[in-house]
């Protein structure tokens, strides 16, 4: 039985193993072999974990041999962003300062995926501490987009996006603080979901912006993303911000939407975001076509404006760095981390270890956040951003009184060349103008491939209200079926 990695889905892996068409070990080995053959070109991984993968695969095969029921993600090769702890791996955040850090506990989301039968194939490259939109800010070097190896895959969860796009894994997890799942999803032609803030536990994922961060999946199909979300969701006593909301069957939500269609669904295109400067014209047109598709499928469509979201980028580049500068204070080279040699005293130890251990973008964000929180500037920056956040949340709430799904592009442009934006941090930040407001408001959103511009994949972002992931995934699944995007890049064929 030959296994075509780029066509595997969660369902086909589990069913194939259950029917003994192939074993979990065979799937894991094919995945590991493909990773070995492609990593020189892609650099999706900071660490590949064949021992963990084969051990987990053997456990699945033992269940098959014993005639036991298989868990929902049985045998599914899965990759994890390198800011998520897993015992038996290093968790480096693609940073020099954590380059030798060995996990001593498991991230809850990772643990839940593995408990659901997922096979851990490795830890994925990322922008250092998730600061970036290209995965170029990595101490281990950039990842490459499988659609064009000279291009970035987006970021910060770029390695996780590449792993799924290039069929190195069937699923991967990323984290999204301002677009770090959705934007690389768009740039690599993958389905990329940021759940509602509080839907998935953040425990064990190295914190960037604690009021913004959320873990979510990359997949090649909406149904696969639903499988991952079902496995990960729910209250975790280890994360006080994980919410005690019921966890519906998200896979059933996809199935039901396909059976019932879009009748009654209210879809609003966010007009003022579509009129923003810098949006690629082809992407703008395709986004409008998506709304037309929803109308054709029976949805009621209209337009909405989110005026304060024009200021979301500014608010985010205060709130995000402010929270990051606090979170990164823990990297003091005392309990863990690479320590600068021969420090004269403790202050010298902190100052040199941090300056030598953090890369340029991390230093920039720490500086920005520390400045925004410092005496004399706190209210003008942090206070003002928090008040803007209130208005952004209010405008989303008002929009969701009239609409179930809001539509924007995911990213203003397709993948750009490695190095193209590296010299200009602000231009890089602008890549997240459509995704950032959603993190500030805490809503759920998904990027679905909607076609190509300049020969490269582009994504549409669907946004839904807090804990409305069933509606979100249902709408995404319907759109996916209409668009029929071929998610396999030429590199893999």
């Amino acid at each position, binding site marked *: 039985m030959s296994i075509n990695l780029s066509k595997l889905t969660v369902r086909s892996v589990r069913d194939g193993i259950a029917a003994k068409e192939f074993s979990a070990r065979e799937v894991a080995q094919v995945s590991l072999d493909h990773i070995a053959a492609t990593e020189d070109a892609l650099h999706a991984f900071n660490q590949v974990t064949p021992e963990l993968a084969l051990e987990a695969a053997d456990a699945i095969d033992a269940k098959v041999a014993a005639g036991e029921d298989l868990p929902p993600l049985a045998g599914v090769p899965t990759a994890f962003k390198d800011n998520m702890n897993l015992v038996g791996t290093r968790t480096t955040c693609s940073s020099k300062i954590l380059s*030798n850090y060995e996990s*001593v506990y498991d991230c809850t989301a990772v643990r839940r995926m593995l408990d659901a039968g997922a096979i851990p194939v490795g830890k994925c490259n990322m922008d250092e501490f998730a600061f970036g939109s290209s995965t170029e800010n990595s101490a281990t070097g950039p990842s490459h987009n499988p659609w064009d190896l000279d291009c970035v895959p987006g970021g910060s969860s770029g390695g996780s996006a590449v792993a799924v796009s290039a069929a190195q894994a069937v699923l991967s997890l990323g984290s999204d603080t301002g677009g770090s799942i959705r934007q690389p999803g768009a740039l690599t032609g993958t389905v990329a979901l940021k759940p509602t803030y509080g839907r998935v536990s953040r425990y064990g994922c190295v914190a960037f912006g604690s009021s913004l961060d959320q873990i979510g999946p990359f997949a090649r199909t909406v149904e696969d993303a639903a499988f991952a979300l079902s496995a990960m969701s729910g209250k975790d006593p280890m994360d006080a911000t994980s919410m005690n909301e019921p966890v519906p069957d998200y896979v059933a939500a996809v199935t039901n939407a396909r059976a019932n269609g879009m009748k009654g669904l209210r879809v609003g295109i966010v007009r003022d975001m579509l009129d923003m400067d810098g949006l690629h014209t082809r992407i703008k047109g395709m986004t409008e076509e998506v709304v037309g598709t929803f109308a054709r499928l029976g949805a009621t469509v209209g337009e909405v404006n989110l005026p304060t979201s024009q200021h979301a980028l500014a608010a985010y580049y205060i709130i995000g760095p402010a929270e990051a500068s606090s979170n990164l204070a823990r990297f003091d080279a005392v309990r863990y981390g690479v*320590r600068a040699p021969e420090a004269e005293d403790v202050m010298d130890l902190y100052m040199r270890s941090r300056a030598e251990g953090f890369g340029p973008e991390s*230093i920039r964000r720490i500086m920005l956040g520390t*400045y925004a929180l410092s005496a004399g500037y706190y209210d003008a920056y942090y206070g003002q951003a928090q*008040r803007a956040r209130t208005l952004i949340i209010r405008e989303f709430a008002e929009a969701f009184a009239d609409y179930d799904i809001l539509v924007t592009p995911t990213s203003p442009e397709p993948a750009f060349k490695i190095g193209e934006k590296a010299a200009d941090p602000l231009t890089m930040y602008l890549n997240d103008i459509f995704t950032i407001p959603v993190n500030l408001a805490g809503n759920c959103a998904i990027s679905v491939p909607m076609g190509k511009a300049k020969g490269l994949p582009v994504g549409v972002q669907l946004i839904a209200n807090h804990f409305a992931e069933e509606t979100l995934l249902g709408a995404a699944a319907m759109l996916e079926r209409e668009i029929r995007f071929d998610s396999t890049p030429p590199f893999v064929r």
Partner: protein
Amino acid sequence: MSISEEQVRHVAMLARLGLSDDQIASLGQELNTILGHIDQIQKLDLEGVETTAHPLDVVNSMRADEIRPGLLREDALKNAPERQDNAFLIPRIVGGDDAS
């Protein structure tokens, strides 16, 4: 608002970043570019709008005050850059010749 080189040095000290003169100079320029964009937020009329620190309407999340397993000492020390017995080892903070 723009940030002066002296302020950049002060903020670097607050953030415990021992930056070189070159880094201070280039960071000053970069931060001013970014702040130039961020300053648009000052134009928003937010008089009387309350602040939001957290996107969901939740208050304290409580649990029973019960003993439960935590990190084992060996695990907690596993990544220590330097250790001595069961402690993290750091340079002397008080006493000696340290003037700070």
